[in-house]
């Protein structure tokens, strides 16, 4: 068990300016990266540099600044496409994040394709952003939503997948890693089953891309959605990856400039993918700096990140177990979980836990984590959630546990 952080990780942490501040009179311990990550200096500098030197609209100006902005914007696309194993940059559509990426698929592919009686298979582990868009589409098309259930460790029960997947199943939409529990889902296994009935597979990768090497080809999925702000990039950035033939067959999502070829009075023709799905001035600075964030993560290396996070996670689970009175949700096998610990403590409500920790400079999340079906599954209304990233250390875990001891002083040992 490590007791002090390794120097190389202290150096990584030092690159995140927000991590060096005091909160409530204590050095900040930021354990809310599943909500959003902090940003390294290189990303912040790139953001300033873009606005100071290259700021211009893309794909339309004939001038030098527009040329620079367009090149950087498209280079970032190519970088993120290869980052997730896409065959071609044109398969990567910039979005505001995972939520918009899923809404894009639901509105475009879903409304165009789904018919009454068709089925969309979700899981009860999903974030609301992978449930509500499908409810909206289901209400309009008459499609039916079905759910893969969880077991008592918050793992998907795949035993009855062959019954849930029928010839009526058009899409399976599942999360790669649960934001509420940290469960890592066997996406490859799910896609293999889905292919047998001809269903497409959409994967919510918001919690996966920041933490591990994702390869969409290897996963065998058809759509993959992720956010930039959880992977050291800026808010409002993110992407949808989809197979070329799907994007080409899907109708536009938003109408406006940039996404057209020729506009007539009554109808128009569309630009090539991915531009067909990028109406209006996009988040140029967001896309470019997300590319810088991807480079940063590559430089640290996903093998190293995964190993470090696992070390911190294992240490945290051990310390919580030693403390006692803490109920941890999610898989017990470290191979099946990511650096997210969702927990409750006896009578102490997660909001109270969070307030007490906040007064000691420890930032966690409390609530339902936009996963009310998960809370319902465990018969609770909320959990406290500590989530780790590459800049966290075992020292942070010690501070968390000290804070939880203080919770037990106030509320009793649970």
């Amino acid at each position, binding site marked *: 068990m490590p007791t002090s952080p390794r120097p190389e990780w202290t150096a990584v942490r030092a690159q995140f300016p927000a991590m060096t501040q005091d909160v*409530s009179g204590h050095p900040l311990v930021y354990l809310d990266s599943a909500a959003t990550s902090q940003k390294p200096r290189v990303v912040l500098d790139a953001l300033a540099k873009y606005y100071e030197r290259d700021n211009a609209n893309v794909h339309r100006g004939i001038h030098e600044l527009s040329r620079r902005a367009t090149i950087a914007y498209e280079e970032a696309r190519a970088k993120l496409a290869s980052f997730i194993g896409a065959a071609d940059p044109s398969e990567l559509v910039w979005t505001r994040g995972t939520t918009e990426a899923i809404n894009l698929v639901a509105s475009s592919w879903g409304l165009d394709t789904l018919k009454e009686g068709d089925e969309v298979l979700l899981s009860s582990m999903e974030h609301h952003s992978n449930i509500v868009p499908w409810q909206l589409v289901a209400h309009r098309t008459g499609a039916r939503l079905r759910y893969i259930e969880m077991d008592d460790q918050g793992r998907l029960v795949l035993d009855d997948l062959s019954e849930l997947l029928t010839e009526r199943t058009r899409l399976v939409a599942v999360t790669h890693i649960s934001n509420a529990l940290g469960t890592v889902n066997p996406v490859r296994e799910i896609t293999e089953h889905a292919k047998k009935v001809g269903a497409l597979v959409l994967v919510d990768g918001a919690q996966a891309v920041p933490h591990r090497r994702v390869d969409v080809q290897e996963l065998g999925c058809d759509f993959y959605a992720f956010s930039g702000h959880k992977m050291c990039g800026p808010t409002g950035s993110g992407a949808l990856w989809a197979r070329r033939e799907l994007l080409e067959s899907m109708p536009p999502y938003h109408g406006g400039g940039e996404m057209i070829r020729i506009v007539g009075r009554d109808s128009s023709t569309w630009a090539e993918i991915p531009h067909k799905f990028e109406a209006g001035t996009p988040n140029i600075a967001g896309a470019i700096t997300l590319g810088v964030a991807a480079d940063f993560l590559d430089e640290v290396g996903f093998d190293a990140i995964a190993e470090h996070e696992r070390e911190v996670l294992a240490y945290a689970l051990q310390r919580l177990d030693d403390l006692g009175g803490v109920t941890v949700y999610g898989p017990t096998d470290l191979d099946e979980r990511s650096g997210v610990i969702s927990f409750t403590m006896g*009578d*102490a*409500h*997660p*909001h*109270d836990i969070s*307030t*007490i920790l906040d*007064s*000691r400079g420890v930032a966690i999340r*409390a*609530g*339902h984590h936009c996963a*009310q079906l998960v*809370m319902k599954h465990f018969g609770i*209304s*909320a959990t406290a959630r500590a989530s780790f990233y590459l800049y966290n250390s075992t020292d942070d875990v010690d501070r968390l546990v000290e804070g939880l001891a*203080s919770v037990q*002083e*106030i*509320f009793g040992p649970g």
Partner: protein
Amino acid sequence: MEASLTSLYQELILEHYRNPRNKGEVTDHTAEAHVSNPVCGDEITVQLRLDGNQIVEIAFDGQGCSISQASMSMMTVMVKSRERDEAINLADLFTDMMQGVEGASVDESLGDLRALQGVSKFPVRIRCALLAFDALREALGAKRGAGLKADPEADASGGAAHDDASQGETTH
């Protein structure tokens, strides 16, 4: 422990949290409100029975944090057997205290509710403390006092006293 935390988690608050008064249902209730804290998903139902203008019975049910549960418990104690208008005045007084209006916090008519004064130093928790009186107002068909920021959720419910449970559905 930090001084502000001590003021937040006073013994009286924790005592109401552990042993909530008037928790459960009111048989033959004449009004009901269902409120939620959208941040954490806590959902609480308040039921009451009016005899004329008097609140003869009141109870709350549902889960929540120590602040919301304690304020629910204290609120029900304070308004039970009060006239409707008195209860609404108390709600306004309590809201003033939470929003830091000068003088409101020392008003003795708030009784045990004064223990919740410390919550006003924790902006993200004020909503937890106000939930009880939002529910009371909704059940009584009243809005927040003049000059205070209206709560769109409470307004949207349009809650008024009623004699069936169906209205509660609209606020779910």
